[in-house]
């Protein structure tokens, strides 16, 4: 599984961080969210999918 973030779209409001802090991170001065693990383990699939679903900007896609 590969996580792709559309940085142009991301608002950095951080909803994805609440859903899956293992993969997404946001510091106070970040303008876009950071993807900590580009190819997360299968065990995180459900959480990453939830993050992609809840992202209001549709900025997260999952490949594979």
């Amino acid at each position, binding site marked *: 599984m590969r996580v792709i973030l559309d940085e*142009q779209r991301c608002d950095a409001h951080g909803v994805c961080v609440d859903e899956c802090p293992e993969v997404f991170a946001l510091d106070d001065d970040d303008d876009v969210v950071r993807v900590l693990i580009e190819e997360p383990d299968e065990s995180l699939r459900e959480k990453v999918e939830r993050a992609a679903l809840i992202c209001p*900007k549709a900025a997260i896609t999952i490949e594979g």
Partner: protein
Amino acid sequence: MTTADATAVQWPAWEDAAFYAQDPEPMYAAIAAQRNAAPVYWYEPPGYPTGLWILSKWEDQRFVGSHPELFSSRYGFAIGDASDPATVIGQLPEWAKQALGQENLTHAERRRFVAKGKLSMGDPDFEGLILSDPPRHGDIRSVLMKALRPSLVRSLRTRITEIADEFIARVEPEVETDFVTSVGQIPAALMTELTGVPPEMRERFIELASAQMLAITIDPNRDAAEVARIQGLVEEFHAYCNELLAERRASGGEGDDLASIIARSEFQGAPVPHGLAISFIHTFVNAGETTRALLSFVAMALAQHPDQRRLLVEHPELVANAIDETLRYYPLNWSGCRTATQDVEIGGQTIHKGDYVMMVYASANRDEDVWERPNEFDVTRSFDKDHQSFGYGEHSCPGALLARTDSTIIFERLLARFPDWDLAGPPGRWGTPFLQGMSSLPLRFHT
């Protein structure tokens, strides 16, 4: 194709402000009837030059929101933008009247002139986010996000709490209090302060901003006196915003306020163009008014559901969720419209290039395929799937974090001071087919 006559319940008159002013129960029954019988429905509003597609399902709206390349925002964003231009020309500025006088315009081009005309307040260079498409849309939006960046919003928590406490301290228990003009005023006070409006002008600014809320929706059924009243206020509003911005530009824009941030920001390597900067200033000031409307609906919902309010008193950590449940249950922005850039099939219907599409967010918020007990107000509801009240995708609300932060703090403080309140009279509503709000909400607070 299914028609309205085929069902017992009359289907919604989407273009008619009166439809939205009725009791929620019959209104949502009408919406559900159409959603279940014809989730993608070609509707022809009486008096409109052509019809539009009504998208009622959550899933279909998510598709449209995340495909701005298939569904453009350039050609209108509200149902009224598709009115017959002849019926709304009196509500438009000179440049838009002239543009609409050209021959051989498509329906989509007419909608753009109407939509941009009503937002522009006479300024042909005005450029609104909601009327732009990628890639330019993303560039514009990132300038706005400099002013609304999460770190800044988070840093405001203390100041929001102070202002909230100051307003709440003025509310007296056991006497009739209008929520809209008391606690409801907090976000407007905050936004004018943040924007950098001088203290002596704030009250007038707030009055003008509420007229601007009405002007965002164009409505052929508005009477001439009301049109003139709104136009007068809106012109004054626009003039004030221009003055504020000019002042910040002249002084180098060194302050911390949002007007200064915009004045010193760059767009594609040059200072932010005037038409864009001015639309941001409008946004900041309007933000106080949309949040006022949201707070009013929360206060009303909690007056109508005392059991839910008691739950929040016992579990203040649920307040943020209660804000989202209210957004789902009583949306402010009822819908968003887009224009198809090519033929697209949705729900077995072919939407043709140039067709206007309306996503009824309020309908998605009650979609039986997404929500359990959709007509129940439940502050413990799980939002694994988000409501549509902030829109979705490319144009989803950039102010959502600020609106949620404000509202959560305000209700945490209010519930701590007054665990109990009830309606002291019937609420006053204002509304257009695009935006709903409250003009008064008489409450009685108890300690």
